[in-house]
């Protein structure tokens, strides 16, 4: 079965300002905030009045290192794009959060009142992007209105296809499903609806024979 090289795997690109948009809504986590700062710089040069129609929701870098990392990327520099830099920009609104669920809750509330002409920018770890996109789907925002850049950990959300439980923060090629206990191969097949990659039993054909566990999504 194909594990890698799957065309449903999301592809990200460095964030660029979309000056055809009228309103701009930006979500950032950790190192993603550096990308947002860059985009805001581009917006300011291209259309200075755009910043007054831009809202930013972010989780700062020093709060986003996760304790569960076995070994991860080097700790994010707390000096990279601190909230204070954003506050100085004359944005329509800046909100700073300490956790993802609250940020996403506020994000959904903003989408309820947002207008056509809005562009969404998301930057940060892939799982953060996936959860934001899942909400954006409910509002019929499509790929022409959303830009996303992956920065920070590649740790994945993995959907166990056998018991339908999602395991968070998976950094390894094989992971044990925390609900049914099956050892799962983490594939590149991705569902935007579930915001997760597929995990399928790795040793069904030869029970007990598992490939070496490697940290690949760091």
């Amino acid at each position, binding site marked *: *079965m194909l594990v890698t090289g799957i065309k449903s795997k999301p592809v990200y690109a460095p964030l660029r300002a979309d000056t055809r948009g009228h309103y701009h809504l930006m979500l950032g986590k950790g190192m993603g905030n550096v990308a947002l700062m860059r985009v805001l710089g581009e917006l300011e040069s291209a259309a200075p009045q755009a910043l007054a129609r831009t809202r930013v929701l972010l989780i700062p870098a020093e709060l986003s290192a996760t304790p569960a990392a076995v070994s991860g990327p080097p700790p994010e520099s707390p000096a990279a794009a601190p909230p204070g830099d954003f506050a100085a920009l004359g944005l329509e609104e800046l909100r700073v959060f300490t956790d993802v669920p609250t940020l996403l809750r506020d994000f959904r509330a903003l989408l309820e009142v947002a207008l056509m002409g809005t562009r969404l920018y998301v930057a940060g770890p892939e799982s953060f992007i996936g959860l934001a996109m899942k909400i954006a789907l409910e509002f019929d925002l499509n790929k022409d209105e959303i830009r996303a850049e992956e920065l920070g950990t590649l740790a994945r959300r993995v959907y166990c296809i*056998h018991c339908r439980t999602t395991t968070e923060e998976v950094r390894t090629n094989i992971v044990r499903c925390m609900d049914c206990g099956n050892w799962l191969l983490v594939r590149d097949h991705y*569902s*935007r609806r579930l915001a997760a990659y597929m995990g399928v039993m790795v040793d069904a*054909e030869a029970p007990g024979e598992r490939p070496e566990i490697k940290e690949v999504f760091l």
Partner: protein
Amino acid sequence: MSAVFKPHETYRNDFTFRNTPEAIRRFPLPFPEDKYMYSVNIEPHMPGAKGSVVEFAFDVDEHYVAECREREIVLAAEPLRYQALPHMMSSQWDVLELIMESLARDYPAHFSLAKHRNRWHWINEPLGIDQEFTFGDPASLPREPLDFITRQAQGDFVVMDQREGDLWAEAGMVTTPADWSLDFDIGMTFKEWHGPVPLAHELGVFDRALKFLLNLRLGQPVRRLNWTMTVNPRLDTSPENYPKWGPDRATITKENAGDLVHLRVELQGLWRLPRSNGVLFGIRCYLISLRELSTVPKWARRVHRVLEELHPALVDYKGLSRYRDTVVDWLAPFDDGAPTTPGAGPD
């Protein structure tokens, strides 16, 4: 034509599924020549030869009752094998109409459909269903329209919405998949759900197929064949149940290959739907054991050659790695090197 049904055949546990000689002769071999590679290979789904699997829009064969019972077993354990997103209701009615009208027209000995304006009366004699309902009113049926009708048809069904220049898989009944999951894939676009297929993307197969399907017209359905192999006549080779059927792949020996290894062919039909402007994708599955296949000398030679030369990426993707060589060995004595006639039919 009325089929004689074998209602107690099983596709699990004791696997009593077998093909009669008639079923073997009409088997849709997917190999018109001695080698195989992907192609778009779409053709109009026009009424085909009498007695063939493409004589009618939806083929009902000797396995009909047993296969419907197998579907009920899967759904009882896993209801999420049937899903439909909320905006797909008009396409559900389109599919119900298409299947009911086709079955009643093509198999009048088994199915009947009477309409008085919106009041419809459907009788499915083999399954013992007698249902009056109001077309367009979901409350007048015991289940959602797509759920109701696909429990009475062989094969899997995926219903796609057409928008933004793409096709989106947003409803389906999938209990006989060749290793893919509706629960995981629902909501995906055409190229996303075909993501796991190797090579075809690079060949541009899906770009051309998508372009063609976006212009699919009412009254002009198309069909193609797809294939893989399965150990035991098991229809439910879903990723969900891989722990159950995965181990079978490692049990094949030269002695048992003839009876356990099955060629699994999908007759895929695609219809434009009238009220929803969606597209119905029907995946009708046919199974034949190597032993049954070898009773047709041309097929034994051909399948031997196709499998021997199959591209490694396809061997892997179709899950044949563990037993391909054993199957090739099993078929070898039937292949004397003689030329085979072109086309897939038996001589």
